[in-house]
């Protein structure tokens, strides 16, 4: 983890309330892994008081650049839209535990909804660069709110899309269900929806593949000291005991079986 100043290369409105921030910050860009995040200081003042955590969206390691995809939901993110190219930005990172990509993985699936899709783009990027086949199951309220389409297409991923307004399937994981068990996935990674997480978890139990979820929580320090960002998790697969784990330190990536919320 480093606290370091980066330079804003580009801060572009993508669609609706979603923006893409490109930052030149070699010290973090070269080391950050998919699933990890950075803590962003949105201005030089005491208000907003806390930094804002964002997962890695993409990294261009040879250029020393990384990208964060963010949705405007409050004071901090609204301020971020005013960040100007060429100006300095204070970041802390890389933080947290990223996704686990098994060494000899041949095929993985990513399942994302809305802005939750962001960290999955980073994972798909790394995986496809290693020659892993990536299947993407993407969901959103409406078609134009689907995230990462351009990037996933560029990476040559197999895409399955679903918007709430469509009714050919109930949810995007129905496409995944149809592919199983014929298609063997070495890992399935989900982010952005409790429902989809539950679906993925149930499928992973049934078919035995590894499945991980990326969670979020309101953070203060972001590096494990304050214990403010905990979630309640199961300590064991038998669900005999619960515990609190820090989303910033033991997470944000957890195994789907740990998450209390998946057992409805």
């Amino acid at each position, binding site marked *: 983890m480093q606290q370091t100043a980066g330079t804003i290369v580009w801060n572009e409105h993508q669609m609706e309330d979603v923006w893409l921030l490109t930052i030149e910050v070699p010290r973090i860009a070269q080391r950050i892994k998919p699933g990890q995040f950075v803590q962003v200081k949105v*201005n030089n*003042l*005491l*208000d*907003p008081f806390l930094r804002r955590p964002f997962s890695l969206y993409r990294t261009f390691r040879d250029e020393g650049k990384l990208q964060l995809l963010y949705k405007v939901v409050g*004071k901090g993110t609204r*301020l971020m839209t005013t960040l100007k190219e060429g100006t300095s930005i204070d970041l802390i990172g890389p933080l947290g535990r990223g996704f686990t990509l098994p060494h000899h993985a041949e095929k993985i699936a990513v399942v994302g909804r809305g802005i939750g899709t962001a960290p999955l783009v980073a994972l798909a990027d790394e995986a496809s660069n290693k020659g892993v086949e990536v299947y993407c199951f993407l969901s959103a309220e409406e078609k134009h709110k689907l995230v990462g389409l351009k990037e996933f297409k560029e990476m040559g991923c197999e895409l399955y899309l679903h918007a709430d307004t469509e009714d050919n399937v109930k949810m995007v994981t129905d496409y995944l269900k149809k592919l199983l068990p014929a298609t063997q996935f070495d890992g399935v990674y989900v982010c952005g929806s409790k429902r989809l997480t539950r679906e993925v978890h149930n499928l992973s139990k049934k078919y035995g593949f590894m499945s991980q979820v990326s969670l979020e929580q309101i953070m203060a320090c972001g590096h494990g000291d304050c214990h403010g960002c905990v979630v309640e998790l199961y300590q064991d697969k038998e669900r005999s005991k619960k515990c609190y784990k820090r989303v910033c330190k033991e997470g944000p990536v957890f195994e789907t079986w740990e998450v209390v919320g998946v057992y409805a």
Partner: protein
Amino acid sequence: MIKSVKAEIVENKPIAPEFFRMTLKAETLASEGLPGQFVMVKVSPNLEPFLRRPISLHQINREEATVSLLYQVVGKGTRLMSETQKGKVIELLGPLGKGFTWSDSDRVVALVGGGCGTAPLVALAHSLLEDKKEVHVLLGAQTKEKLVCEEDFISMGAKVKVATDDGSYGHHGFVTDLLKNLIHDVALDMVYSCGPLPMTKEVVKLTQEASIPCQISLEERMGCGIGACIGCVCKVRTKDGAFTYKKVCKDGPVFKGEEVMFDD
């Protein structure tokens, strides 16, 4: 009439180390503002810094409907002001306070400015010269680099003399040395002063000794800036020899030299 105004920044650039001149498109301020008055500047759109910053009107241009503020970067608020770019719109409250006054019978006047205190004297000199007065301007600065506005006064037609603490330009010594000489050489009808407290005290002393009327512009930390909170007071002599507190934002910032009590 106090108005809450949104003004576009036409220019905001340094004119000396730590000194900036901000020119704003502000019709009401330009048409109603008077030399010696000030505005309360909202330096940040957030809650931090919390209070507005009181800055004197430096130049009032009725024809172009603009006003300029000359400010020194001394803290959080002024630093933010210096970083605000051309084209941005900032909120101002004003015009505020009681400005400088003059009458037809004042024919020869002296303006004594120290450091950033010189700012409001530019607007004053402009008005006095328009009224065909003979205007002597005495400027004091720590060093030649920190001297501001000399050119403005000369080009207006004022008779300008300068003193620097380190002797790098003009008289080696205090601006009040220049005042002493001027009082000796010229029959002055009024002396106006704005600058650091020690300079102001000396100006008051010299003008009282020579029985010349004197107007001083004071500054004080302000809350509301409009006279409601009574936070920004200065001590003022009352007729019975006692004292009272007057509001620098409303009863001032311009006061008669002899009425202000300076606690040593």
